[in-house]
Each structure stands twice: as structure tokens, then as C-alpha cells.
């Protein structure tokens, strides 16, 4: 080799994770100095304000040095590690081999993340993907060599939102068990980073806001009919009805930061997405007021998918002005959601349940009918607004939902 080795080393830099993000923290290294790594295999994990992600190795070779220790926060573009590509002699500093000229330490290979366009899919996988309009490059594969198997794409389809309407949530009470002596723990340990962050945010919100919750009952008959016709979820209708209600009561679509109250012209709609055991994330649909019900439904599907496949960027979770949470898919009927700071309100959409209700006809005659009813809850910050506005806003959402055609 005639050139200096450092000329040919490949830098591993802190990636730009979104236009608004300037720095990131190294959470874990997957390699040590001296390890071999394949291109595209994960070299380290980093964390920004809201998103944790894995950094793929830019080249195959031997890691010659690691420059940023775990826990340190550095600017975007900072060199975090260097890799000597195959064929490059590593400077003597590289441990652990004592053999002269021997560069290879322990080999650590991971299945490389397949690149788009380089994967082949079986006929059934392609057919299911086409039927559900799925981008197969987003589907993690568990087959040999990371191949996407039928069960992988089916599991991906299953992560779609379940329908808003469910049958009666009533289940018989379980037979009370005799209280056992404390059994040995079957799981546990340190909270994950995401759980800790959720905890901090929730606790801070409750300490900051004067949180009140107001509920209203909504007859979802028309939504149910339209939903079936359009093939979209009820959530999209609730979102659209809320956006229309915000037009009437824009004070709901605001931030309160200390004493500074800011009303926003755009509805940047946050949608809470459960990540299962891992926690919860609230990706944002910017300028949701410009979208139809179908458009909202498509965006909700998109962000939910990306959230569950850990594909969100920090920009996807910033700038929300109003949030909707939708736990009713599991059958619950009421909740007291916690406001997503610095917003001033959060809407809780619950299960649609058939109930007997009193209907008054045009002549004023009452009768009892079976209607799909949903309880909408609004948690609002009493520092920013009062109960009357919350109730008027909810009434407007109700009116909009009951007028869906």
C-alpha cells in the first residue's frame, strides 16, 4: 500500500434524521474496535429527541476505531467510528490480534438489511402485498437470509387498525382467584428508554396542565354506514369531524407554553399509535385540514405502519397542534387522556357499542331504537380554556359525525 491508510478509511457519521434535528446520542455500539462488519449491518444505535434508530455500516471491513462513547451526544455529521474496507491494512493501534499484518478480529456478521429492489418475493407474498397495497420493502423478513415469508406479510397486514366498531365488550367477570402469596416474578427489569420517556412526558403534562375531561355521546349510525361504503376506519371520520369543529372553535387548536398561548392556522393532527409492549408514539399528520376522510384514512394507515416498523423520522412526530387517541378498538368506553404538551386538548375516541336509545321523531313522538353509540372524551387544559368551550367543541364534533352522509 503506498497511500496512507487513513485516506482509505470509511467514516461512520451521525446521520441527519430529519431536517429539524441537529444532534443525536449514541445509545449502543454493536461492534468493538477490531470487529469485522458487513455493509448495511447495524453498527450502532442512536437516539434523537423522540426517535431511536439503527445506523447501518457504510462499508464492509474492520472497525478500526470508535470515537463516540455510549451516552455521548454529538452534532449531525460528526465521525462516530472508522472502518477499514477489505484489503486496507489497519494501523497498529487496532487490537486484539498480535499477528503481524493480521487484521481480522472476531467476525461479527449480521443479516444485512435487504435493499429495496434486491429482494425476491414468492408468488403468494406478492399477491397478498398487492391485495393490501403493501410496500414489501417495509416488511421485515424472518425467513432464510431475511426472506419475507407469507407469515411476515400477513403479520404486517394484521398491524392495520382493527375496525372501530366492535360487538358488545361485555364479558363475564372472571372467577376470583384465591390471592396467592407473591409468586416469583415472571418478567420485569429496567424500563425501556421509550417507557421512561413516555412516563416523563405524561407526568410533566399532569403537573403542568389543569386537566379536565368532558364526555359526549355520539350516534354513529351514519358513520358506520359511510365507513362500510368507503372502506375506511371510523377514526378517519372522527378526525375529519374534529377538524371541522376546530374551524368553529379554533381555540382548541393551540399551544400553551408557560403563559404564552398560540393559536395555529393549520391542524397538525397527532394520532396516538400503540407499539404494543414497547409503548406509544404520536406521529403527526401535518395540515390535516386539507385532507378528505379518505385522505386522512390513508395517512393514518401510512403513519401507523411506519410507526410500527420503526420507520418514522423525528419530523413525523413534531409540530402537533391537536391529538386524537383511539383505544376504543379494544372495547373500552371511556378514558381520561393526558394532554400532549404543549397542546391544550386531546380527543379520546372509544368503542362504538349498540345501545338502546330514545329517538324523537319529527312529530315529537319518542321511541326506543338500537343505535351504535360512541362516547367521545375531550381532555382540555383549564388554564387555556373553559368547560363551556370544551362542551361546545364536543357538541360540534357530535353534530358533524351525526351529519355524515
Amino acid at each position: 500500500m503506498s497511500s496512507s491508510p487513513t485516506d482509505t478509511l470509511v467514516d461512520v457519521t451521525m446521520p441527519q434524521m430529519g431536517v429539524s434535528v441537529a444532534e443525536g446520542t449514541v445509545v449502543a455500539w454493536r461492534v468493538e474496535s477490531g470487529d469485522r462488519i458487513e455493509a448495511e449491518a447495524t453498527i450502532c444505535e442512536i437516539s434523537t429527541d423522540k426517535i431511536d434508530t439503527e445506523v447501518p455500516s457504510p462499508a464492509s471491513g474492520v472497525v478500526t476505531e470508535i470515537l463516540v462513547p455510549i451516552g455521548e451526544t454529538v452534532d449531525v455529521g460528526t465521525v462516530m467510528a472508522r472502518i477499514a474496507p477489505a484489503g486496507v491494512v489497519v494501523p497498529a493501534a487496532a487490537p486484539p490480534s498480535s499477528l503481524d499484518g493480521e487484521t481480522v478480529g472476531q467476525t461479527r456478521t449480521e443479516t444485512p438489511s435487504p435493499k429495496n429492489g434486491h429482494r425476491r418475493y414468492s408468488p403468494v407474498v406478492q399477491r397478498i402485498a398487492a391485495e393490501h397495497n403493501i410496500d414489501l420493502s417495509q416488511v421485515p423478513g424472518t425467513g432464510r437470509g431475511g426472506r419475507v415469508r407469507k407469515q411476515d406479510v400477513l403479520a404486517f397486514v394484521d398491524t392495520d387498525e382493527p375496525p372501530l366498531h366492535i360487538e358488545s365488550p361485555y364479558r363475564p367477570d372472571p372467577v376470583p382467584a384465591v390471592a396467592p402469596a407473591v409468586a416469583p416474578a415472571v418478567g420485569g427489569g429496567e424500563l425501556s428508554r421509550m417507557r421512561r420517556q413516555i412516563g416523563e412526558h405524561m407526568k410533566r403534562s399532569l403537573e403542568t396542565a389543569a386537566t379536565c375531561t368532558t364526555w359526549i355521546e355520539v350516534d354513529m349510525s351514519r358513520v358506520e354506514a359511510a365507513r362500510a361504503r368507503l372502506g375506511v376506519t371510523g377514526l378517519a371520520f372522527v378526525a375529519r369531524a374534529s377538524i371541522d369543529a376546530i374551524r368553529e372553535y379554533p381555540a382548541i387548536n393551540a399551544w400553551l407554553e408557560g403563559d404564552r398561548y398560540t393559536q395555529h392556522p393549520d391542524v397538525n393532527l397527532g394520532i396516538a399509535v400503540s407499539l404494543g409492549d414497547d409503548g406509544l408514539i404520536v406521529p403527526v399528520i401535518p395540515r390535516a385540514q386539507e385532507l378528505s376522510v379518505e385522505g386522512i384514512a390513508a395517512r393514518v394507515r401510512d403513519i401507523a405502519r411506519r410507526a410500527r416498523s420503526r420507520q418514522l423520522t423525528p419530523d413525523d412526530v413534531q409540530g402537533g397542534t391537536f391529538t386524537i387517541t383511539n383505544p376504543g378498538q379494544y372495547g373500552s368506553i371511556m378514558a381520561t387522556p393526558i394532554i400532549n404538551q404543549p397542546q391544550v386538548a386531546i380527543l379520546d375516541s372509544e368503542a362504538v357499542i349498540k345501545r338502546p336509545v330514545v329517538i324523537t321523531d319529527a312529530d315529537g313522538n319518542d321511541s326506543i331504537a338500537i343505535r351504535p353509540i360512541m362516547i367521545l372524551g375531550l381532555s382540555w387544559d383549564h388554564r387555556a380554556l373553559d368547560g363551556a368551550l370544551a362542551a361546545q367543541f364536543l357538541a360540534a364534533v357530535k353534530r358533524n359525525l351525526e351529519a355524515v352522509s
Partner: protein
Amino acid sequence: MPTLTYLQAISSALRDELRADDRVVLMGEDIGTFGGAFKVTDGFIDEFGPDRVMDTPLAESGIIGTAVGAAVVGMRPVCEMQFSDFISCGFDQLVNVAGKMHYRQGLAVPITVRLPSGGGFSGGPFHSQNPEAWFMHSPGIKVVAPSTAEDAKGLLHAAIRDPNPVCYMEHKHLYRRVKGEVPSGVFETPFTARVAQAGSDLVVIAYGAMVHTALEAVSDGLDGASVEVLDLRSLVPLDEEAILDSVERCSKVVIIDEANSTCAAGAQVAALIAEKGFESLDGPVVRVATPDVPIPFSPPLEAAVLPGVDRVREACRELLAY
């Protein structure tokens, strides 16, 4: 319901048919006084007499040729080949005469040819073969292959009552190993496939003795996978609907043949899936079959060539991981 062995179920079907229909006659080598090489027709000559349970010369061509003539004039003969291997001596009468009679002269040939087949008992190259594919390749002949005692009886009733020549493949290895409840009296099992075990992750398609190999291979659960076992029962006609339905649900397929691999029944099944089930597949169609060699006498060599539980299980594991 009485519990019968596979062999007793075959005897029961023959006896019921002889009692029910005067047109039914049995022909074969040593089936009368001796009661058959495997004792399927033991005592029949006493009940039905030598005119209906006929000991024939050692001439398969004569047995089948006589049966074809009798069938054309209205009888319903059931021929026994002492071993299915010996059918090659009667090949011309079966393939060229019986199989083509309907197409050439519009005459039905309602004969049944019983073919004791299969290996696993050190019978060597002349007494262990599975010649069913020869007849699948010949138009005009139906081929069935029961794996259970109930199907052994029901398929034999249906074969005898079918207006076409039917090759009835009875697996020698199952004769006394397989037992089951069998309805009394005459019942016909349709020439369709049967789901022997339902599953959703992978389907093993087999017939005859290999159905039991398949069931045993997947009995340990294969690491929690849900494996279906489809028993073809009939090779001609082949139950395309059932095969494609299993493939549609499971998307991964292992096909077992005890016969030699090339052009075996399983090859036809694989071709069918490639052609009509392509869009359901999530992996290559995998075949486990006997290699293209005669069956060896030597027990370890025979065990090495026949598809065994371990080979089938390994094939399933490999495909599940694909």
C-alpha cells in the same frame, strides 16, 4: 362399528360384494384353496365356490384378458395380482385392451385389479414396487390407493361398482399394521382426497403407506408449526380441488412418493401445483421420493432408499424455515 385391519377391510368388501351381486367374481393365483398369498380371500372358496373364487394359472395376461372379456359381457371381475410387481406380465391386456375399450368400441370394462404393492419388509426388487404411475399415464384406467381400513373397504366397493377399469393399490405394509373402525355393509368412498390432519403452515401430500409416514413425521409438532397432511386416496382421478385448496391455505408443500421419483404420482401433483397453484406458493415445491433405483433386499439399504420419517421431517423443517 367393528374394528378391522386394513386386510380384513379388503376381505370384508370382497365378501360383501360377492354376497350382494352375482356378477362379481374373483380371479387370481392361489386365491381359492390356499386363500391367497396374504390370506385376503381365506375361506372364500367354501362360501362362494370355485366358480366365483377362481384359482388361475400363473399368467397375469390371462387373468386380466379373461376378466376383460367377462366384463364386456356383463360380469364384474376382481383380479388379484399376487404382487403388484407381476402386473407387468398383464400390462398389454390392462393398458391396451381394458383401458382403450371404451374409446374404441364404446364398451364398459368394469374390472378391478387388486395390486398388493409397496416395500418395507425386505421383499427385494420384484416384490416391493409401487407401479401406480404406469397406469396414471394410461388413459382409461382409474387408480386408487387407500391408507386406512375404512378407505380400504369403501374404495374397494366403489372400485368394483365403477364402470371403468380400476387399479386398486393395496399396500402390503399396511395389511396388519393399520386398524380402524369400519362401517359394516356396503358403502362407497368417493375417489377424492381426504385431509388426514388439518394445518395451515405447510401441507404434506401423500397416499398409501406414506400417509402414515407423514403423520408420524409431523407428530412431534415441528417446533409448533401447523402442518396439514392430505391423503390423496385417488390418483386417477386426482382431486385437484382438494390439492389446490390445501396449497392455497398452507402455501408450502412437501409431496411424498414411495414410488421411484421420476414421473411418480407426486411429480404430477407438483406439476399441477406449479401450473394452477403458483400464486399461492411461498416456497419451492419439495418432493421426497424413492430414488430411481430398484428396491434393495438389504434391510439397511431398503431403509435408506424409502422415504422415512426422518427424511420427511427434515424436508418439512427446511421448507418451514425457508
